[in-house]
C-alpha cells in the first residue's frame, strides 16, 4: 500500500533554556501533540502544552503537515523545507523549552492525522475563536469526533502578524 505522507524531518526545537529531562522510570509518558496551524496559533498551542506538560510530566511533540499537490512528487514540496525550518526558528526564539518536532509531507492533512495520531491522543490545536467556526476550530472538532482529546488553545496574536512583524 502506498502511503500519502512522508516524514521529512524529525528533530528537537531547542531554545535558550532547556528543561532538564525528568528521570526515566519505565512508565509510558503522556504525549501532548501540538498540530502546526500557523506560527502565532502554534505559539499559543505550545504555551498551553508547556503549561500542561509541567503538571503532567508529559512530553510535547509538534507535528507539522506540509501539503504537496498531486502534480508534484511527494518528496518535492512547493514550499521549501528551509522556509518551514525558518518558521520553527521563529518559534524557538520565543520558547523556553524543548519540543520534539516532526515535519510530514502529505497530500491531505486529515489523512495524515488519521495515520499519525495514535487512538485517544491528547492533541492541542491553536487558533482564534469566532462566532463562525474557524478552520482550526473545525479541525479540533473533527479530531474530537475521531476520538482524540482535542484541546483548542485560543491565540492571543492574530495569525499573520507574527511573520510580517
Amino acid at each position, binding site marked *: 500500500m502506498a502511503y500519502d505522507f512522508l516524514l521529512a524531518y524529525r528533530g528537537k526545537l531547542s531554545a535558550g533554556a532547556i528543561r532538564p529531562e525528568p528521570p526515566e522510570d519505565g512508565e509510558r509518558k503522556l504525549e501532548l501533540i501540538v498540530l502546526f496551524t500557523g506560527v502565532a496559533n502554534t505559539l499559543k498551542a505550545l504555551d498551553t502544552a508547556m503549561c500542561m506538560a509541567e503538571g503532567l510530566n508529559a512530553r510535547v511533540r509538534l507535528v507539522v503537515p506540509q501539503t504537496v499537490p498531486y502534480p508534484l512528487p511527494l518528496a518535492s514540496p512547493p514550499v521549501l523545507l528551509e522556509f518551514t525550518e525558518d518558521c520553527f526558528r521563529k518559534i524557538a526564539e520565543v520558547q523556553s523549552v524543548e519540543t520534539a518536532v516532526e515535519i510530514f509531507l502529505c497530500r491531505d492533512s486529515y489523512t495524515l492525522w488519521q495515520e499519525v495520531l495514535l487512538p485517544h491522543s491528547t492533541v492541542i490545536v491553536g487558533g482564534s475563536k469566532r462566532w463562525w467556526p474557524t478552520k482550526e476550530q473545525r479541525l479540533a472538532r473533527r479530531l474530537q469526533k475521531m476520538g482524540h482529546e482535542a*484541546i*483548542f488553545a485560543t491565540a492571543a496574536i492574530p495569525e499573520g502578524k507574527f511573520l510580517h512583524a
Partner: protein
Amino acid sequence: MSAGRVLIVDDDPQIRRVLKIALAGEGYETGEARSGEEAEERLREMRYDLMLLDMNMPGMGGLATCKSVRESSDIGIIMLTVRDREEDKVAALDAGADDFITKPFSTPELLARIRAALRRAPMAPDSGVQQCALGDAHIDFQERKVTVHGKEIRLTPKEFDLLRYLVLHPNRAIPHRELLRAVWGPDYGEEVEYLRVFIKQLRRKIEAKPDDPAYILTEPWVGYRLRLPESL
C-alpha cells in the same frame, strides 16, 4: 506532630521573625511571605491552616490579599494592623478575615486567637483524611504516596493536589471553576480542558477501568464528583 501550618505575611522582617519564633515554640509550622503577591504564591505551593496577614503592605495591600485569597480558599485569616479604627476592623472582616488584632499585641493573646481561629476553621486536609482507599488504589496523603495493587504509582504534584481536593469533598459535584481555582490558583477558572486531561490521567493511574470510571465521575456540564466506597 505539628499544631498547624501558619503563613506569616508581613513586609517587616522583624515582625516575621518574632512571630515565627513565638509560633514555632507552640509547635506550629510556619511559612513566610513579604507581600500579598508572595502570599498567594506560598498558598499555591502549600496548604496552610491559617494566615496572619498584615493590613498595611506595599504593593497588593492586606485587604486586597484577604479578598483575593478568600475567593479561592477557606483558610483562617487573622489581620494584623496598627490601626484601631472601627471602619478598619469592619473593612477587614468584610474582606473575609476571621479575626482582627491590633499591634502591639501580646503573644499569649495572639496564640489564643490563633487557637480559636483554628477551632473554627474547616477541616484541613492534612489534619483530616490521612489515608484513603479507592478500590485497589491506596492513597496516603501524608506521605504523598499512591499504591495500586501494592505497586507505587507516580502522581505529579498537580495530579496529587487534584486528587486530594476531590477526596476532601467526596460525593459532591465540584464545579470546574472551583477545582481549577483550588488546584491551579485564583487566576484559573475557564480552562476546563486542563481538567479533562488531568482527570483522564488520574483515571488511567487509579481506576481499574479508566473508560468506565467507578470513583472519579464526570458530572456533565458541571464538573467532577468523587464517589467514595461505602466502607470509608
